[in-house]
């Protein structure tokens, strides 16, 4: 989770990722950010995020994103 937070902080240092649960709905993350996050996740965790998982529910909060990473690691 810490590594993931680092990735997110690097993109938008001003966002409080512990509390924010609307990163997509509030348009904080755009498609450029999403692709960057996916590339970084691939590098850090060796997990490929398929396009079908790019849905708001998976990217709205750091917690949801971490749950996605864990699920993909399990798969």
């Amino acid at each position, binding site marked *: 989770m810490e590594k993931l937070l680092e990735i997110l902080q690097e993109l938008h240092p001003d966002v409080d990722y512990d509390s924010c649960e609307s990163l997509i709905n509030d348009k904080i993350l755009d498609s*450029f950010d999403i*692709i960057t996050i996916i590339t970084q996740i691939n590098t850090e965790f060796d997990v*490929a995020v398929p396009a*079908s998982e790019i849905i708001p529910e998976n990217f709205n909060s750091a917690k949801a994103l971490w749950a996605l990473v864990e699920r993909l690691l399990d*798969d």
Partner: protein
Amino acid sequence: MSFVSFTFLAFLAAVFLLYYLIPKRFQWMLLLAASLVFYAFAGPTYLIYMAVTILSTWGAAYAMDRVWTRQDEYLKDNKELSREDKKAYKAAQKKKARLFLALCLILNLGILAVIKYTGFVLQNINNIFGTQIRILRFALPLGISFYMFQSLGYVIDVYRRKYPAEKNLAKCALFTSFFPQLIQGPISRFDYLSRTLYGQHDFDGRQFAFGFWRVLWGFFKKLVIADRLAPVVVTLTGKAENYPGVFVLGTILFYGLQIYGDFTGGIDITIGVAQMLGIKVTENFDRPFFSKNIAEYWRRWHITMGTWFKDYIFYPLSVSQGMIKLSKWSREKLGPQIGKRLPVYISTILVWLATGIWHGAAWHFIVWGLLNCVVILISQELAPLYRRFHERFAFSNTRAWDVFQVFRTFWLMGMIRVLDVYKDVPTTFKMLGTIFTTPNWGKLFDGSFLKLGISGADYLVVLFGTLVMFFVSLAKGKGDVREMLAEKPAVPRYICIWLLLAAVLVFGAYGIGYDAAQFIYNQF
């Protein structure tokens, strides 16, 4: 059968009557029959193309669904398998499903490529290599790009296991052919449309009235604004050299209004007709001319096409293994900033290229797509500068600045959009250049604009229509205008509806030689 024809009105009346008279369980079958009749009017042979799309998407989705079901059953029955064995089994099943998906995509996109792009490719080969290959041109089935993309979206979703496949071939056929949205979209998603498409619907007076109002509003935009402006746009772009400078500004303004009235009006009719049948169709516009930049404009204009390209091309391309490798490589070799941008920029360029090509087989569509892309990427690069600008200058956070941004976006988008209407790309750029070289402002006041194919009275009608459209759009910002209207007492409510109907009948552009039958987006 055009939406703007008496045949369509008679057809609709028959469909509504039967729809609410027959047993409800047969309603979706009636819609299928009606949709096939509707499409047969465009040309019976076009039904063959549609049949290929229906059969192939139904078959592929069905086959993939079986693969996924068997996989689930196998894994359920073999819980003792090791993680590696499960992974290997899943990979093998995915490969099978991918084969069905690939066959379906290749068949459909292959057909689309051959009938839509063969002439364009051969023409360019002849131009470049000086060859004399005979140019083959195929009749383009009406709305093929719309119904095919909608069906392919469904197949890809089944492959991604977003939802199970529809086993009933006839229901699948209705999803592809549903007549209100068949020829110009929206490009619906199966999970959304199917919720109401196959349902059993009682007649609901309120929904029927709301749908009717929306249809009427669509006719108003199409007939009172778009079709009345059509002759001016034809004149201004037909012999473009005769109409430089201020006339080009006129082209940008009039074509912008024309295509807005035409396309959003057509979609209003689509959504309204569907609502009268109790069916919910996805919205395709969100007041696009109030956008403050081009990226926002594209999130609000032809929304279902934009999200289709994003979900099925942009994201898959951006997160593909090749692109991830490229990103990693560029991060190491060229630095984190370029590494971050490269996959997104390459995907964005390819998506806009595809969007241009989707619109038609012509260079101006390709240039149009790439110009949109260039503006969006420049805006993306300048975003930090904009942020600093907003922090530094207080006026940039005022209402007036918002209005300026809307105005700027309208004209910038309009300059790109006129690539549609001038005869070719060089002419468009040449004419845009004349805005600065030979503006001829005097032409605004010497009556020249009254000699472009419509009279002063026509301009007044267009001005009146545009103002109505503008204020309705403003009101939409506060909620559904029809809901607001429904809350009014009966007298003012009916006055509004009758005035709208009267405006369509009195001010609509009817007449001999009038080409209302053709909606601009039908050709795509």
